[in-house]
């Protein structure tokens, strides 16, 4: 009942069209005032959640993208993609999914993935005649791959709370992540075929392709630099973001020329504005999470599920529904911390593999990022495009369906996740 009232209250407040951070913060304050009689701790919650060095990846990856866009490095990259696969209907959508997949393998965060790819991809997709809501949806959904394809911040957190192997989880995420990317790509092509208004020029010929390739080489070199830096142990995630920014500046100033101090400042200012939008929602979500944790709301619901006494399959299904619902309102870190310790004992006693569950959980947390009313990737896309939220939600909704199918598939065939870690020697 409390659960219903809290979430109904939040939804009503959100629908009045006040800023999302204010809706989250005010709902939290009302809860605290009713249950505690004061609003202590809200300020501390905001401070604690913003004071995290890893969050520096958000402005830095945005900054990298801004510099590459302003210097028109990204234009060349998309010209290349368009020249090579533009004649295939939906090819640009596939290219965007591919870019998200590559970036997901660089970053541990879905927000960073959607931010960096979205800032450059959406204007380009529109440039080549993609329907706007499709472009928005592809990036919102493709961006979520950031936490399923390793490295992944939420996976590390889940592994520590559940005592599952981090290495095994990382490996287990690869196949489902790549499969989802494939499904997204196929969907883009199918969708493009049913919409005749998407441009699909004729094949431009090898000479044009080669020329486009050599122009885009500097942009193409950025992912291996950043990703290689992380995999070979040169950089941590935030260092990779800084190195990527440095590289982008180098290319902009030395190769493309004409990038002055004024451009630098404009890029930083645009980065500031985009980051603010994300960070203030993190702040509001921190207050909201603090309030409902304090009144033990998610704990109560999760305990109720544990006490239902279900079969393994029934348990997984009910838990997935529960996390889907929580995911509409909460961000992934909070969901992991709140539900995992309570669900784990029952899960183990039912013989459910924590690695397999971990991957199901990750896909569900990906969904949380593109389901309204609180979905970070929806907000990110909104922040960088100014499109109405309803259009973004509409664009992302087919992908919600695809991910739900993916989860059902993974429930039916657990080997998709467990095969790779088992083959690599992670066993019980």
């Amino acid at each position, binding site marked *: 009942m409390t659960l219903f009232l809290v979430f109904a209250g939040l939804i009503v407040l959100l629908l009045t069209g006040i*800023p999302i*951070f204010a809706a989250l*913060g005010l709902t939290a304050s009302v809860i605290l005032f009713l249950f505690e009689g004061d609003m202590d701790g*809200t300020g501390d919650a905001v*401070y604690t959640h913003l004071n995290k060095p890893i969050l*520096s990846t958000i402005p830095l990856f945005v*900054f990298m993208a801004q510099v590459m866009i302003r210097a028109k490095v990204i234009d060349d990259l998309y010209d290349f993609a368009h020249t090579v696969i533009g004649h295939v209907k939906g090819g640009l959508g596939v290219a965007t999914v591919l870019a998200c997949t590559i970036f997901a393998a660089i970053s541990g965060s879905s927000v960073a993935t959607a931010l960096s790819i979205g800032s450059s991809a959406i204007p380009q997709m529109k440039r080549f005649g993609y329907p706007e809501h499709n472009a928005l949806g592809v990036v919102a959904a493709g961006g979520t791959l950031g936490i399923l394809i390793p490295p992944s911040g939420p996976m590390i957190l889940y592994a520590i709370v559940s005592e599952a192997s981090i290495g095994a989880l990382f490996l287990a995420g690869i196949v489902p992540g790549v499969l989802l990317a494939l499904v997204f790509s196929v969907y883009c092509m199918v969708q493009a075929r049913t919409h005749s208004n998407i441009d699909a020029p004729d094949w431009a010929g090898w000479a044009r392709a080669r020329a486009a390739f050599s122009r885009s080489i500097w942009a193409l070199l950025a992912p291996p630099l950043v990703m290689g830096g992380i995999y070979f142990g040169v950089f941590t995630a935030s260092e990779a973001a*800084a190195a990527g920014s440095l590289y982008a500046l180098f290319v902009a100033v030395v190769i493309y020329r004409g990038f002055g101090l004024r451009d630098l400042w404009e890029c930083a200012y645009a980065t500031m504005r985009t980051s603010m939008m994300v*960070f203030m929602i993190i702040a509001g979500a921190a207050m909201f999470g603090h309030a409902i944790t304090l009144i033990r709301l998610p704990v109560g619901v999760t305990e109720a599920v544990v006490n239902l006494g279900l079969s393994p399959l029934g348990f997984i299904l009910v838990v997935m529904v529960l996390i889907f619902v929580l995911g509409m309102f909460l961000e992934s870190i909070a969901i992991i911390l709140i539900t995992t310790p309570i669900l784990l004992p029952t899960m183990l006693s039912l013989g459910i593999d924590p690695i397999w569950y971990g991957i199901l959980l990750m896909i569900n947390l990906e969904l949380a990022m593109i389901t309204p009313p609180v979905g970070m990737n929806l907000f990110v896309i909104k922040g960088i495009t100014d499109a109405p939220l309803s259009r973004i939600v509409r664009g992302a909704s087919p992908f919600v369906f695809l991910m739900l199918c993916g989860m059902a598939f993974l429930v039916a065939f657990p080997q998709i996740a467990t095969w790779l870690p088992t083959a690599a020697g992670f066993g019980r």
Partner: protein
Amino acid sequence: MPDRENRKGAAKAPFFPERLVTGVVRLCGAVSTFLILVIFVQITTAVIQRYVFNRPIQWSDEVIGYLLVAMVMLGTAEAFRRGDHISIDLVSTRLSPPIARIQRLFSNLSVIAFALILGVSIWDSITFAYSFGSYSVGYVEIETWIPQVPIVVGAILLGAMAALRLFATLRGERK
């Protein structure tokens, strides 16, 4: 207060608090922008220190955390001024003008309330931490209230900016 027929002239007329608040908000937005560059330079320097000079900057991560808090809180009012903070627009874009005006009033009021709650709450924490004498643990041992101060500043700026907007809506301006 100027009446509605006069509102073009009124908007142009120098309105001291508006110029003052807008000026300070823009200045803090610039500081926030500058802090992004500082964070970028600091992380880059830390990498170079580690690899080239084999002397990692131990305090780097802690300071990045503090800089992030300052960056967010100093920039949020400027982002609000530019209309960057997003809201769910499923309903609000379909309202008739008079209702839309009430919606804007409510929206600005909600931001003022948010700023007030955040500001008062963190002010409590700051004064308590100051009298308690608590220090951060790690490589930069500073009193814990110091890095929280930007939150008070940010809450005041955000509240003031929203108050200006509220006032402008009351005067009948559309934006």
